[in-house]
């Protein structure tokens, strides 16, 4: 009975780790799709305009954004070498990374919310290796719950 109990504990721990790793795999797949989609979009746009956009109108990955109300007063201290910054806000703010921005731009084909149309799913499939396709199908309707044997 004691050994059964120990195995139950181990089983639970493994299940939790598997869940966390499935989530990690899902995020990696999303990042791959979003990145490739972005690169493809920009390549097509540059081909259409025959030149790249002005360098001061674009931000290259990686980056982080901080957004707040335009009425917010921000007190900013910067070290001389720009290695340290300190921001004091008098209002709430939000922080998002570049991947979140790409998801909001629709670059992840709706997979981040499990709402992926058949057309988007087709695009997403073309952006990942074949071995990851079973996971994509699951993600299109929710999240990864199974691990497929390659």
């Amino acid at each position: 009975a004691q050994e059964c109990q120990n195995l139950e504990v181990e089983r639970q721990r493994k299940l939790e780790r598997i869940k966390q790793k499935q989530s990690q795999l899902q995020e990696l797949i999303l990042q791959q799709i979003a990145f490739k989609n972005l690169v493809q979009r920009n390549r097509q746009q540059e081909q259409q305009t025959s030149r790249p956009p002005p360098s001061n109108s674009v931000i290259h990955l990686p980056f982080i954004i901080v957004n707040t109300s335009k009425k917010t007063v921000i007190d900013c201290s910067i070290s001389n070498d720009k290695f340290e910054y300190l921001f004091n806000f008098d209002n709430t703010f939000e922080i998002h990374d570049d991947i979140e921005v790409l998801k909001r731009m629709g670059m992840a084909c709706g997979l981040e919310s499990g709402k992926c149309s058949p057309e988007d799913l087709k695009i997403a499939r073309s952006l990942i290796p074949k071995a990851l396709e079973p996971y994509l199908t699951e993600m299109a309707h929710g999240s990864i719950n199974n691990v497929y044997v390659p």
Partner: protein
Amino acid sequence: RTRILVSIGESFGSSEKFHKINQMVSSSERTLKRGLDMSSAPKPLKRL
């Protein structure tokens, strides 16, 4: 008291941390608003 630390450049986990930060910051706004609402609500009259 509580500080959330994020290391920029992590391949996994930073999105969740930012989400946590945003929740922490926005919950403070809700607490502040609730406090303001409660303090501005009129006190009920006592029954004789």
